[in-house]
């Protein structure tokens, strides 16, 4: 934090005004810390509230014995409350410490390793999607005709449920992706799905960000006779960062979804998606394990979201954060 000697006398009205502003900014930063703490606390409280509601609903259902009645909503819009449909919260969390049959590791460690596997798939796909998305954004920003012609197709591409084609990509990838210098592995096919989900928000928001500098900033660069690359590097790219990060938050989550669903439909072993599918098959013997694995996926999703938010704080820093969606 810059040192400001508020005691020093000054006759410059601008400097006086500035010092007042500095003080306000300082208080704002302090408030930000308070806000983060408060948000963390509310999040924990909210989760506790959810667990309480879950338990309360379960207790109520068991008390009126919903299995014995023919309720129109229960089993259709609301779940039945027996231990098979709604295992107790204590058992779901207790499951994390158990060692499932045939393994010498506790469940939370297994989930952690599988989350890392899924994270790798998602991250690889995310990075490729980021590069492709930015390349599209740059091309569309450069040529207006291209923007008019291609943007509708970029948007339309998102209505194609590529996730459902995951098994084909994996099978086909095994046979045909031998053009690369490395050996093609199944998880890379899953990454392609994550890429497909990532490039779209990056391209659309990246385009908006690259077009965001005010006309006088453009004119300033022109007045310096700056070339295309200089204008891109010093003006357009930095200006696009707030927009880009709004997209990256969406994309990070989407890449995890893509990886999980990709694993499930493609039959790729080793990640969280496959874990959830296996627990779904064994539901009758261990419903609490399914709930625990789904919780693991939720934690992974929130984790990547927080990582991107943290990187944004560091990279964008002092820039005014405009909320973009």
């Amino acid at each position, binding site marked *: 934090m810059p040192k400001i000697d508020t005691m020093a006398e000054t006759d410059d009205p601008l400097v006086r005004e500035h010092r007042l502003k500095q003080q306000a900014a300082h208080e704002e930063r302090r408030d930000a810390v308070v806000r983060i703490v*408060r*948000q963390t606390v*509310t*999040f924990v409280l*909210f989760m506790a509230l959810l667990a309480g509601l879950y338990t309360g609903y379960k207790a109520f259902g068991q008390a009126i014995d919903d299995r014995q009645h023919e309720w129109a909503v229960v*089993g*259709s*819009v609301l*779940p039945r409350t027996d231990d*098979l*449909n709604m295992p107790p919260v204590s058992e779901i969390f207790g499951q994390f410490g158990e060692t499932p049959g045939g393994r010498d590791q506790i469940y939370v460690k297994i989930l952690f390793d599988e989350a890392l596997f899924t994270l790798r798939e998602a991250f690889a796909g995310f990075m490729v999607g980021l590069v492709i998305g930015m390349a599209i954004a740059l091309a569309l920003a450069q040529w207006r*005709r291209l923007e*008019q*012609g*291609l943007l*509708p*197709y970029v*948007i*339309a591409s*998102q*209505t*194609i*449920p590529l*996730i*459902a*084609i995951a*098994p*084909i*990509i994996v099978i*086909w990838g095994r*046979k045909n992706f031998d053009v690369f210098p490395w050996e093609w592995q199944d998880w890379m096919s899953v990454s392609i799905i994550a890429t497909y989900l990532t490039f779209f928000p990056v391209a659309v928001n990246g385009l908006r960000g690259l077009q965001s500098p005010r006309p006088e900033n453009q004119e300033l660069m022109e007045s310096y006779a700056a070339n295309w690359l200089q204008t891109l590097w010093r003006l357009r790219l930095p200006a696009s960062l707030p927009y880009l990060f709004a997209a990256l*938050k969406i994309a*990070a*989550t989407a890449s*995890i*979804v893509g990886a*999980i*669903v990709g694993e*499930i*439909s493609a039959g790729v072993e080793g990640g969280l*998606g496959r874990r*959830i*599918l296996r*627990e*779904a098959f064994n*539901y009758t013997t261990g*419903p609490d394990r*399914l*709930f625990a694995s*789904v919780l693991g*996926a*939720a934690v*992974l*999703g*929130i984790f*990547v*979201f*927080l990582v991107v938010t943290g990187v944004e704080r560091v990279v964008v820093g002092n820039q005014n954060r405009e*909320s973009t*969606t």
Partner: protein
Amino acid sequence: MNTLKGFSAPIVTGVVLFGLWEGVLTLLNPQGFVLPAPSEIVGALIDNWDEVYQGARITGFVVGSGLIAGIILGILAALLVTRFRTANETITPLAVAVNAIPIIALAPIFNNWFGLTSPRSNQAIVVALVFFPIFINTTRGLTQVDRSQIELMESYAASRSRITREVRIPNAMPFFFTALKLATSLAVIAAIVAEYFGGRQDALGPMITQSAGLTRYDEAWAAVLAGTAIGAVLYFAVIVLERVAMPWHSLIRAQEGET
């Protein structure tokens, strides 16, 4: 004249893209390629019209009903939350974090709750996926209002509900429609993927995976095409709705486009 100009670029690009796609595949003719030529996909669509149409109806129903329920719940929650300032300040960041959860992972749990062959669990997934973006964006739109507009209404001694109607809701419209466009494509993807876990076996989701399993890629893509059509119809419906609901907005954009 001007509208024609607006459409010419996408049409030219489309002809070039599909021409290239068809041309490259016809020339190279790779065996067992995942992506058949457009003509083959259209052929498969015509040959299997009855099944694809039936699947699209079932999936379309899941998408449509889930979408409507998700929108209603999202708007209600946003109106409720903006009513209370503290609730808004705590719940909105929470919703943003919860939105980062891969909701599709809930599909197996929903299947057990609502029955493996019932479309109800698929609808539940669609509702959950649609709810969050609608809720988050509508809340933003209702709260990020120009302070002076509120003060103007207060100077007229307007009631709270009146201010909501006159200022907050119009202000929230663009935010809402942005989320709605996102939600339509999300809903189609969510429905098809959820169908992969359970639900009716003659829906589009199972049709895609079964055809793919039998390496009938053209049929799989025909079903994908039907899913894309559902998404496109909904997307255009949203755009029409947007024009009707916010005529001033398209006017502003048209002016911006001029300069």
